[in-house]
């Protein structure tokens, strides 16, 4: 008689597990930064992903979805640990997120080795577009070099003859400055890499910039560092003396604190909030009414990631095991992106337009607007190093 409660419990558990197996759901692991000063970015991405799920009726590809959010604390080793935990212990079907290129590069191997699809909604290191490309990795953002390359084209159009470059000393910073140099035709007056993420005082480098007397300064300082940089650029009296051109330094997460310091500082982007397609209008309007603030490009890319996964699962009619079918469906990029139509290159990096964004004051608020299209259908310059065809 002692064995009966135990047997009953075991039977109940077995029946529950059997019942669970009937309702198949999609498990998505979301790795981003949710602590520290750059948590605003992670929150924007999470908000956008949740909004996308709302728009899809809380189902992806018609199946119920479970999202597990993990914090990488902006550290590559933590991001890798969390990725491994999501793959091995939570057994997720998709990995989404990855703001930072160094975190993504550290987390790449576990994902690729386990054949888990990884959709990077931000980081686009050059290695990933070239030798390390994988059939299981897709980007809904860009390859790091593409955006500063567009800014280089714009700087040529403006007749800038010499530029002083500054960026943080990690994978993305190096990509960004290399990307600018790939299209900018003027003289490079200086190239400074600052310690990342600790060094927030740029006085030594800004003094060097002033000494070099360039026509313009180009910088890449994402997240909170963009606020600190613009503060110091103004405090040192460089604002108004040397024109500033940026990539990923001014966006909707930093603009509320940069305010008038960002006026007249152009940036390049593949998505700006006022792009005129219907999906984007719905995304921006619903985001603003649900979260009471404007979405940034980080969020727009994450919104697209959800729709990309949805397109893949719909194409294979919910058969998660059909990875080949999902891959081919994703390569066709048949979902409606908020940036407008785009295609994938052989390395699963988008071939897309880049726009000139500028900051204007509307009433009491500062907003980003699209001023022009800088390049159309730009492809990254590493795609021929990728062995995939």
């Amino acid at each position, binding site marked *: 008689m002692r064995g009966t409660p135990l047997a009953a419990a075991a039977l109940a558990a077995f029946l529950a597990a059997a019942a669970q197996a009937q309702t198949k759901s999609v498990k998505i692991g979301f790795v981003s930064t949710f602590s520290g000063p750059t948590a*605003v970015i992670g929150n924007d991405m999470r908000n956008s992903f949740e909004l996308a799920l709302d728009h899809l009726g809380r189902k992806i590809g018609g199946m119920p979805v479970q999202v597990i959010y993990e914090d990488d604390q902006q550290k590559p080793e933590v991001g890798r640990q969390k990725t491994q935990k999501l793959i091995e212990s939570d057994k997720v079907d998709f990995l989404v997120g990855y703001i930072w290129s160094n975190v993504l590069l550290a987390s790449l191997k576990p994902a690729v080795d386990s054949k888990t699809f990884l959709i990077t909604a931000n980081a686009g290191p050059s290695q990933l577009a070239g030798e390390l490309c994988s059939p299981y990795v897709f980007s809904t953002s860009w390859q790091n070099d593409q955006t500063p390359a567009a800014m280089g084209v714009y700087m040529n159009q403006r007749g800038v003859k010499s530029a002083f470059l500054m960026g943080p*000393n990690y994978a993305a910073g190096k990509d960004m400055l290399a990307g600018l140099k790939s299209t900018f035709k003027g003289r490079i007056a200086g190239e400074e890499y600052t310690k990342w993420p600790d060094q927030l005082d740029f*006085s*030594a480098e800004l003094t060097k910039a002033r000494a070099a007397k360039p026509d313009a300064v180009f910088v890449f300082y994402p997240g*909170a560092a963009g606020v600190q940089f613009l503060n110091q650029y103004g405090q040192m*009296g460089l604002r108004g003396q040397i024109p500033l051109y940026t990539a990923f330094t001014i966006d909707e997460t930093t603009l509320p604190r940069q305010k008038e310091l960002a006026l007249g500082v152009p940036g390049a982007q593949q998505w700006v909030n006022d792009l005129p397609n219907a999906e984007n209008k719905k995304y921006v309007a619903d985001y603003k009414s649900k979260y009471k603030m404007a979405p940034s490009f980080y969020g727009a890319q994450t919104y697209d990631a959800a729709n990309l996964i949805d397109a893949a699962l719909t194409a294979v009619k919910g058969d998660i095991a059909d990875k080949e079918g999902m891959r081919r469906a994703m390569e066709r990029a048949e979902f409606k992106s908020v940036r407008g139509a785009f295609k994938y290159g052989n390395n699963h990096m988008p071939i897309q337009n880049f726009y000139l964004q500028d900051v204007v004051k509307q009433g009491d608020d500062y907003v980003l607007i699209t001023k022009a299209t800088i390049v159309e259908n730009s492809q990254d310059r590493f795609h021929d190093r990728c062995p995939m065809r």
Partner: protein
Amino acid sequence: MLIFTEQCLNGLQFGLLLFLLAAGLTLIFGIMDLVNLAHGSLYMMGAYFAASLSALTGSLLLGAALALAATLLVGIAIEVVVMRRLYGRDHLDHLLATFGLILFFNELVRLLWGPAALSVPLPDWLNRPIEILPGFFYSAYRLSIIVVSLATALLLYLLVMRTRIGMLIRAGATNREMLGALGVNVRLLFTFVFGVGAALAGLAGVMQAPTLTAFTGMGENILILAFVVIVIGGIGSIRGALMASLFIGLADTLGRAYLPDVLAHMLGPAAAATVVPALSSMLVYLLMAMVLLLRPRGLFPAAGQ
């Protein structure tokens, strides 16, 4: 030449800011024999108070003054609640307890102010360049940091060397028990010293907030540098803290400014992109290692140690 002067001023400003932190840290370590990792958290609280209070009152100066007072109160609260239980115990206990305080304050700040960093906008009279020499402009705000820090250093010197309380502080550093036996209220004295240290850390935070913005975890990085400073300068010695912080500030800034070009010349352009930025940021720790090899007790060790 002017650029070199500007870089020296940058280094001076950074060094003086480090001094504010290191002075409090070395006082607390030297007099109370307390390793206080939470010093960085007091720096962070100063920055956050400055951000909120200057936004609330609309005036940077008033906000800064109130923020100083608030950080002082927080420091005294920490001393009474936590530090009193740590006196006389092993340094490892201090490390554990104050590390816990770091975690506590980081989370508290996130709960009260949210995860986004807070900006402290500068009034126009500070947010402009000043012409120090003909043709040579320097940021008014960084100049004001230099002036305020030097004034504070002077006040600290006067306090420790020329007042009765300063005499009690120096006596307590030499022999705590004797001081208690002479009828001095040592507990109150220690609370006072900790409060002074907290106020100095808060002042550093208040002054850094407009440049760096206030964000969680901002105390940790600068705390490491502050420890490097007091190790190089000599534990318990304020003079050592001043010399060492100026030395480190200038070395770090001038290193970042000139070392990359020098090394790139010597090692070639391929190394310039990869090795050089890393080397120039390691400079401070290399210097600390060298000083410790030559003078293990620091450059200006406090008398009696």
